[in-house]
């Protein structure tokens, strides 16, 4: 075999090798990227109760999805509200690491793939599968009541938790079924293959006096965007104290919900005049009131001919 033939063979083998290496590299990249991790109920609650499917894996604690609850106790005559937030902080960690690798060239080797977590669950299953428990009753999984209602849904049946996506449920608890003050409240979401456990919160003591009671009622009405009850409660608050910052703030919110923007602007200005004096450097100004003032001022200015 002459030198030219050897050269052609070597060139051919070399190029074939390069193509193979390229393909192997592509395979590696695809493997790293992966697909989302899907969690979905594998058995119905009824089947579980009857023991029809004993081969299903037992629910286990899952760190993959974070369920955080927050409780608005409401006034004595109003409902309570549990806000349940779902997010995936593990995915957030991966996203933050990627952000660092983009910022710092030397950090490249630390970057790891982001694997979104997907929770697929029909709307009707959310209510069935969330169990609230108070301290001591967690093992029994006793519901604290059966009459609560979901007021805000995730909006879709499949929620994919990426780094910055979360979803909230709002669960209204009638005043007669509220957990007692001091109780440790937590929630558990059974998704079959996993059991997601929330943080534990302490139910606050009842409002001390009519003013505090009215404020708590306003907060629930505000979250439920119930303009009428909110305005009633705000006016009740102002009746107890005509110089109450909170009263004007809630009144402004109610009026804004009802589209009465001029009146809302005036209420916000009244609220700002009555906000507490800031003393220390780390005091925080009521910027959300100022923000509403600016937004409303802008909207009204745009409406004027």
């Amino acid at each position, binding site marked *: 075999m002459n030198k030219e033939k050897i050269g052609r063979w*070597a060139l051919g*083998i070399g190029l074939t090798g390069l193509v193979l290496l390229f393909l192997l590299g592509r395979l590696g990249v695809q493997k790293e990227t992966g697909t989302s991790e899907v969690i979905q109920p594998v058995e119905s609650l009824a089947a579980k109760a009857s023991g029809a499917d004993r081969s299903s894996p037992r629910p286990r604690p899952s760190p993959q999805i974070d369920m955080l609850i927050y409780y608005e106790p409401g006034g004595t005559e109003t409902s309570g509200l549990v806000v349940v*937030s779902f997010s995936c902080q*593990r995915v957030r960690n991966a996203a933050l690491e990627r952000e660092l690798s983009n910022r710092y060239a030397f950090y490249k080797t630390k970057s790891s793939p982001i694997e979104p977590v997907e929770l697929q669950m029909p709307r009707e299953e959310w209510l069935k599968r969330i169990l609230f428990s108070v301290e001591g009753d967690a093992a029994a999984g006793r519901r604290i009541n059966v009459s609560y209602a979901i007021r805000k849904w995730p909006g879709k049946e499949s929620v994919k938790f990426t780094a910055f996506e979360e979803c909230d449920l709002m669960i209204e608890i009638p005043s007669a079924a509220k957990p007692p003050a001091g109780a440790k409240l937590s929630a558990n979401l059974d998704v079959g293959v996993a059991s997601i456990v929330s943080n534990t919160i302490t139910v606050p003591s009842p409002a001390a006096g009519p003013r505090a009671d009215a404020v708590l009622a306003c907060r629930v009405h505000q979250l439920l965007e119930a303009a009428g009850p909110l305005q009633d409660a705000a006016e009740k608050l102002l009746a107890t104290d005509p110089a109450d910052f*909170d009263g004007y703030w809630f009144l402004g919110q109610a009026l804004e919900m009802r589209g009465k923007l001029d009146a809302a602007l005036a209420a916000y200005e009244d609220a700002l005049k009555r906000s*507490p004096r800031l003393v220390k450097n780390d005091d925080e100004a009521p910027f959300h009131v*100022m923000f509403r003032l600016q937004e409303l001022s802008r909207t009204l200015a745009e409406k004027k001919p």
Partner: protein
Amino acid sequence: MIERGQVNIKNPAVGVGLGAFFYLALAVFPRQSVQGWSEPQFGFLKGRPATLHKIEKSWRPIGGPEANSITITAEIDPLTKLQGLFRFTLYDVSRGRGWCMNSGFGEDPDFRFVGNQPDFLPLRNEDGRFVLEGTKQVRLASIVVQAFDSGAFGRLKAEVNIDGIWSEVPADDGKSYITLPLDENENHIADFWEERWGVLGQKAVDDRDPEPGGLEDGDGFSNFEEYRGFVMKGRWSDTWPGLKDVFVVDDVGRGVGHFTKLGVAVHFLDRTEVSSLADRVVNFNGGNASAGIQKAIYICPAHLPETVFGKVEPGIGTPNVVERVLIDAGKLQRSSPDKVAWALAHLLGHAVNITHHGDFPGVSECDKDIGAVGQPGQAHAGEANCVMRYVFAFPYYDPGDGTCYPYPIEDTFGTDYCSSRAGTGLNGGPSRADGAGNPLPMAGAGSRGPCRSSLAVKGSHANGGSNK
């Protein structure tokens, strides 16, 4: 004329082809290697009858659910055609609490021989030294050591019995032992890790993290602690010793907003991954080469007065000082994403020692004297896009003419942290009037900061200042 041993290549394609061929050959058939084997086989004995081989440089111990192991080999020079009984001793083994900085408990030895290894007697424990002795005459013996801690360190020596005489088997470098992991400066951190992150030559206890800049270097975690690593939302990882790490327990679930713009490495932790929510210590399994305790930031849902969106308790400072970042979760529900991202970054800025750009002094000339009046050098001053600058002052005060003006309407939430006290946007530029005839700039330069220079994550700095 071509002589023996020379190759004459005239055609460039031949050269390219040969290069590609050898590249391919190396990629597909890498040099045969045995785990635990760091030297080529040729000449490794250097005149000694037997050698204990150093372990692979790139190996490091990992504990916990992903615990790993390493194979270690000793052998007799094949030229001697001898065989012997080998005995391995594992000693000076660390006993760190748990298996990384924030997981596990117990202080058992961090390295152990894997039990029931073929052709070895049962494991013996001789006053904390683990001994594994062979039962079969061999030329080459390999044993497996299991790691139980990501910061495990220890020493291993070998002996060989040839013709009834025990003798020490020296390591490749002539020492009487090898270190686990490979750690020539014996500071208990694998050498490759120190080289990789540029801290070779530093002490294990050093805490220098220069990036991002700020009041001082360091993040409260020593090089050894960053090497030993942390469990973050159920996953173990080491951290980079050149970058300030901030750990967050988030019970609100809205993330950290624009806080990441600071360039610190933010890691979310589970509630069980700190000592307790009250103490918040992240490196609670510390001991060896510790830089002291370092705490996480706890973002906590709270009912706050309607005037307040969130606050830090007890006041501005480092994560060791700030006990809680309180956020009114009810207000988050009714806020736009840009407002939430601003508020989180603002409050978390306070939790790493960054203050407002100034105070909130009252102005008697202003009708709405609520202490949030925009005025030169105070909280609304400075770089317009800084998250620590207060937005939407109502009204603002011009000391030049002693007039209170309604705040310029066009203002937006900041998205970053300032590097200078200078006023920009509505706080900077030449004297001018806005569309409504109000004088600009509004508040000029800030009187504190710049924010990036106040950043501190370790120690007990408070209110933007130096250590208490």
